[in-house]
């Protein structure tokens, strides 16, 4: 009993300090993930595992953007893959044109943000499944352009070593440099998590939330639909494009055919399975959808592993419709039940 009390006190102080410094958990989490980048050097982890984690880190950012749209604003997009592709391929094209990395990244973000704004304007007119399929149109148009326009180089676009600030050159091929690239994308992810946290807790986040519950009520409270729908779509495309830039940065060789409807659906699955409206839940979702099959299931079952991932998705959605991260509340409830059970026992023994 006493030990339980101390644990509880510990958690209470922890949650207090978290409310005081909300950034701390993200940084701790980032440090944990960053350590994965250096474990393969010690031989404790295979290089392939690090590659899987890089993918998870990159798609966490993408999925967070979609979570802003799906979880906080109640809007859906089937064009996410197109924008990730825009980030990765656009970066490649601009770097191959001779622009420095930083300028290329900013240019890509500006262009994609513009497209996001257009979709946002469009979303004012169209809703529900029609909006979803309208975004699918955009995704398909982008995919056609990637695979058929020559500037994207046919099968894949090679970026090669990336030069930061004009003097630090990091290449995927060198193992040590690859670790630093992993560190870079982890830092980017943590930054995006903090940005997302701030957006969600700000006036914008509350407005988006109000809009997702009821458009009309939100409008009556003086929330401009035009402004916040645009914001939601621009933010989501910016996150997706940023994820694409991270993809180009880490893998340095970007396929043109990978940005299909399937990938967009997977990103939605990551958000839904992991946890709507939850930042860590998003990461958990990416881990479940991409990490578990690639780290374990594929080794044992090969191609059949898809069956297990499919069943996993179906089961999680049936039992945790708001996301697997909410299992935390069930665990908490179980714990309190257990504690009550203990205290009852104590009373009976006193008698």
């Amino acid at each position, binding site marked *: 009993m006493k030990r339980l009390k101390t644990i509880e006190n510990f958690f209470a102080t922890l949650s207090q300090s978290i409310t005081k410094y909300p950034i701390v958990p993200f940084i701790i989490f980032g440090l944990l993930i960053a350590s994965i980048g250096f474990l393969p050097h010690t031989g404790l982890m295979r290089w392939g595992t690090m590659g899987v984690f890089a993918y998870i880190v990159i798609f966490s950012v993408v999925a967070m953007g979609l979570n802003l749209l*799906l979880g906080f604003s109640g809007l*859906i997009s089937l064009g996410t893959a197109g924008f990730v592709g825009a980030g990765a391929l656009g970066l490649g094209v601009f770097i191959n044109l001779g622009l420095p990395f930083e300028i290329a990244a900013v240019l890509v973000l500006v262009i994609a943000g513009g497209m996001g704004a257009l979709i946002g304007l*469009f979303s004012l*007119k*169209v*809703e529900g*499944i*029609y909006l*979803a*399929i*309208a975004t*699918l*149109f*955009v995704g*398909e*148009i982008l995919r*056609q*352009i990637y695979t*058929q*326009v020559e500037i994207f180089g046919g099968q894949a676009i090679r970026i090669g070593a990336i030069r930061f600030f004009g003097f630090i050159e990091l290449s995927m091929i060198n193992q040590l440099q690859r670790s630093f690239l992993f560190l870079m994308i982890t830092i980017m992810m943590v930054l995006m998590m903090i940005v997302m946290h701030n957006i969600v807790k700000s006036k914008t986040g509350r407005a988006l939330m109000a809009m997702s519950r*009821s458009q*009309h009520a939100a409008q009556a409270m003086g929330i401009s639909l035009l402004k916040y729908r645009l914001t939601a779509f621009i933010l989501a495309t910016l996150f997706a494009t940023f994820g694409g830039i991270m993809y180009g940065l880490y893998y340095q060789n970007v396929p043109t055919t990978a940005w*299909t*409807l*399937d990938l967009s*659906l*997977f990103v*939605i*699955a990551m958000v*839904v*399975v992991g946890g709507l409206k939850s930042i860590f839940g998003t990461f958990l979702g990416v881990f479940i959808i991409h990490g578990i099959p690639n780290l374990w299931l594929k080794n044992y079952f090969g*191609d*059949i*592993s*898809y*069956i*297990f*991932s*499919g*069943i*996993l*998705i*179906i089961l999680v*959605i*049936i039992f945790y*419709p708001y996301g697997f991260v909410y299992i935390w509340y069930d665990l908490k409830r179980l714990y309190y039940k257990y504690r009550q059970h203990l205290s009852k026992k104590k009373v009976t023994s006193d008698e």
Partner: protein
Amino acid sequence: MTDLLRLLFNSLETGSVYALAALGIVLIFRTSRTTNFAQGMIGTFNAYIAAFLMLRYGFSIWLVALAALITAFATGIIIDTFIIRPAAKVSPISKQIITLGIIMVIIGILPWFFGVDAMTLPRFIPSSYSVTILGADLRYNTIFVIVLSTLLMAAMFWFIQYTKWGLATRVTASDETTSKLMGVPTKTVTMVSWATAAMLGTLAALFVAPRISVFANMLLTVQISAFFAGTLGGFSTFFGPVVGAFIISFGRNFTQFYISDIWGNVLVYTSILVFLYFKPYGIFGKKPTKKV
């Protein structure tokens, strides 16, 4: 003139295939309130069964097609009973992701059951039987596909519009809770809708299979076009998507031939997007009335 006729026949054939797939999607959208992304995959799975039976036992195409339609009916019922019904309470978006789960399960099953080699299915009527009109070849098979799809769709519209079960389907589509209260067996309606949709998807797969071969992503284009057709025609009617399917198939074939191979699709998609901006619920769609 020859080119024009060839394009016309071709568009009619692909349009019929798109229309079948779109009809399946709309049926499920109306009765289960979910966008079924697995529509193509379910069709593919049953096309695999057909191709496998043909390869293994040498049955004729007509027989294996019949077998595939029966298994399709069963697949639809199994999916509805074991996956969709337990998830009746989850939100529409989560339901869509459940259909993604179904896609993944089927992708896993395919190599396990049927091996990794691509298989083929022949045409219903061999391509040697054809007639030449003004220099353009018209296969009897093409006529068969067009006529069968048209008859099938006409039968379905008649069924939905004029029979008791069709009425049950329509009321389930418009308000499931109320129709349940009125004694409509909504569970059976939903189940049969899934089965019918699976059969429509399978037919689309069997019609497409001879042109490409039987492989996991064979229906990808068909399915995406079917979604587009649904949006263009409007999901609130059953015949809107069929019209949309033919518009998309014609638009795509003609722009690809007369304008450019690369930009044909992009052009068609962009013009549909612009059209949707002015008419957000499709050609025949109505704005859903919402009570606050």
